[in-house]
């Protein structure tokens, strides 16, 4: 089952507006947007374009930092992390596709801090499932959803972005 009613064009535009307001007081070279591979990077590259950011887009592959390496293993096909500039004292806009338990964001922040000490980290997510297991929340949320028990949400993309909701069991 696919939830095709979401107008991602409008949602992304709204997110870009909110993010632009958040960073209004910062210099262009103080800002660094980072997308989490793979879905978060799709969302980030669209926001990056909409916001006309000058600084290059960072890419994060958190697979070395996951707390479930034991069950999921390594994925060599996912490209390694690439942070184009020194992140120290930067205001980081971290972007992911779906905020669920918060564990991905925890892993991403652990990795980011191994690269340096940012001035701040803000989180933007396209979808918030409202089922987090850690004290982590997003600053900018595209769309908030509530799934029924046994339902899973996965973003497919990059062109076009679509949210697939499947049921197990």
């Amino acid at each position, binding site marked *: 089952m696919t939830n095709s009613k979401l107008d991602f064009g409008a949602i992304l535009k709204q997110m870009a507006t909110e993010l632009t307001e958040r960073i209004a007081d910062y210099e262009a070279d103080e800002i660094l947007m980072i997308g989490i591979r793979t879905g978060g990077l799709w969302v980030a590259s669209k926001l990056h374009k909409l916001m006309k950011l000058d600084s290059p887009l960072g890419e994060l*592959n958190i697979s070395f*930092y996951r707390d479930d*390496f034991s069950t999921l293993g*390594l994925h060599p096909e996912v490209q*390694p*992390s690439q942070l184009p500039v020194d992140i120290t004292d930067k205001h980081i806009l971290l972007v992911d596709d779906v905020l669920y338990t918060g564990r991905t964001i925890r892993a991403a922040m*652990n990795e980011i801090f191994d690269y340096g000490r940012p001035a701040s980290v803000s989180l933007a997510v396209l979808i918030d499932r409202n089922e987090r297991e850690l004290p982590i929340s997003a600053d900018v949320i595209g769309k908030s959803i509530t799934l029924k028990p046994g339902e899973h949400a996965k973003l497919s993309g990059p062109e076009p972005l679509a949210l697939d909701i499947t049921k197990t069991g």
Partner: protein
Amino acid sequence: MTGKTLQTDSEGRLKHFLTTEGLSQSLLNSILDHAENFAGVADRPVKKVPLLRGKTVVNLFFEASTRTRTTFELAAKRLSADVLNLNIAHSATSKGETLSDTLRTLEAMHCDMFIVRHANSGAAHYITTQVAPHISVINAGDGRHAHPTQAMLDMFTIRKYKGDFTPLRVAIVGDILHSRVARSEIHALNTLGVSEVRVVGPDTLIPKDVESLGVHVYNDMTEGLTDVDVVMMLRLQRERMTGALLPSAHEFFNRYGLTAKRLAAAKKDAIVMHPGPINRGVEIESSIADSKRSVILQQVSHGIAVRMAVMAMTMQRFNDEGDS
């Protein structure tokens, strides 16, 4: 069961790493792909990822080694594992403890991985048959048999500089007879599909049956280097030589030392490799070892990434199996 079948599980995933012989091309490529990702860790301010946090890796060295042991140690530490360095030659066995009792003792300390270096061929394989099922064994060199992580870091280096393996002509030069590195390299190069593997050296230092491994033998250095893309020099293993295999090191250099003149026979962009430690003026002219064509120090850096990849891959299988 042979080392070939012992090292992968029923789904073909790496469980132990004992030899490059018998592993599929896709598995060798997957080691190289993983290593590519791990190589980036060295460029970060914090050169560490938490992948093997809580795991204990034992460097079980029955034979002296500095380079291999330290790069394994660094690789394990960059994966956040705890590392124990045991120099067995100087400890338990000299007090009369048998190898299998030493292994039982280490298992009781809840270790997860043994990195084994031993002077006897087949030692790592034997240890693999003796350890508890959750433990992974990585061969860090056994006698004249195999040194698979050295071979894979050499493959990683070749891929970095040359890209595709298929058109390449590779010459392995020197003491093939005593070299576990050469054997592991020959298997890996042929599995990865290079166009030609040559071994170059005096008859006394070339094993009799070596052609059956799929190589061409050259006794003349200049002929052997003609039009090659990669020159892999080997160390003259004088500590393993018994009997009169060589008149002298000086004589060896005169016939098989890598000089600028001989290297001129190879392709213009040929790279020069050496597993180390190098004997300047014995296997290789100093100016060549320090030249731009030499990738000897890059090999060392690549060794850490390749060993991280192999360690993570073998640990992954166990976790994965335990959870299903």
